[in-house]
């Protein structure tokens, strides 16, 4: 109580709205020192930390997003490749089938052609041989007939014995001639 009365008595004359200039000076200087420290050190350090942290987080997110994008791109690519490969395989299979069929058909055709060619060749050969045989027979028969006739005419036809000899000789000649021709 005494304290209160004393302080009321001493401060009663002082207007509380009138500042103490020394106190003002101390507050001004103290605040400016604080402001200087804050401007110079505190705010830059905090801002740097904030910026680094934001960068680290954003960098991490960006990296993760990039990795995810890459992964999905790769997946997409693999799917695409798989589809391509399937299509390709189907196409190749179809082609092979078609080619096989083509080859088979070609072979068949070729075989048919070949057999036809062989047949035709055989026919032609047979024909030509027959022609040759006919020609040679024809000439040989003529010659034979002529020779035979000459021989017959050159010998006495009355004599049976002679006639038989002539015929035998003729045949023997013919045989020897044949044998010589065979050689």
């Amino acid at each position: 109580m005494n304290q209160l009365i004393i302080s009321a008595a001493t401060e009663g004359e002082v207007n509380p709205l009138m500042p103490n200039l020394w106190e003002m000076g101390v507050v001004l200087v103290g605040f400016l020192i604080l402001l200087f420290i804050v401007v110079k050190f505190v705010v830059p350090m905090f801002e740097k930390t904030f910026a680094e942290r934001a960068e680290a987080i954003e960098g991490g997110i960006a990296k993760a997003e990039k990795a995810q994008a890459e992964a999905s791109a790769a997946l997409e690519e693999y799917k695409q490749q798989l589809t391509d490969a399937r299509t390709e395989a189907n196409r190749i299979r179809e082609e092979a089938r078609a080619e096989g069929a083509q080859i088979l058909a070609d072979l068949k055709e070729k075989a048919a052609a070949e057999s036809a060619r062989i047949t035709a060749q055989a026919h032609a050969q047979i024909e030509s041989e027959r022609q040759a045989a006919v020609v040679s027979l024809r000439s040989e028969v003529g010659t034979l007939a002529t020779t035979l006739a000459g021989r017959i005419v050159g010998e006495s036809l009355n004599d049976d014995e002679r006639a038989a000899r002539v015929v035998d000789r003729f045949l023997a000649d013919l045989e020897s001639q044949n044998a010589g021709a065979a050689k």
Partner: protein
Amino acid sequence: MHLPAILPWGAAEGFSKQMLLVLLSVAIIATFFVLAARKQQLVPGKLQFAGEAAYGFVRNGIAKDIIGGRDFIKYVPLLFSLFFFILVNNIYGAIPLIQLPTFSHVGGAYVLAGLVYFTWIAIGVKKNGLRYFKLATVPSGVPWFILPIVIPIEIISNFLVRPVTHSLRLFATMLAGHLIVMIAGSGIEYLVMQENVLLKGTSVLVLAGAIAMYMLEALIMVLQAYVFTLLTAIYIEGALHADSH
């Protein structure tokens, strides 16, 4: 309850307890935040986390929300310093043995309000040129015949009353809180010394009231630091965007 004043209390000259506390607050704030900010770890420790939370409160809760834009960061140091300077100096009043909110002496409040006053005027002039005074006092969209009334009101409220209310709000709440706690303490002392037992017993009621007032004061100490800083941010924002007001 009080530490004694170092040199004559309330004297026009001499180094008082109030001055010591002001300088001590500068040391406390600077030490705490420099220590907290120094390590700059991406994953903060406890101290750094506390410092960042406190810094972020002023940076994002006041500067960014009120001033906004890209250049709010320029005003963060001022707002940050104001908030914690006032906060620590106010909280002195709630600490036993110290128990002196330094802004219960009006000089400090005048100094800070004056600094803010010149700061926002300088910002307004720098941003808008001398046209700023017209922008700040002549509201747009007001009919011409009301202007003779509005312009003096704007001049008085913006340029004359604003710094006064800004400083006195802080000073008066701190002085009043200081006085209430002091009166309650003296009242308790007075009642306890009474002969009458019943009268002596009523000191318990005063004590309960004093504790409640103490809590309220502690709240007001924080709140006034916030209000002072918030108003500073609003004044700066008004000066920056004078042409859109």
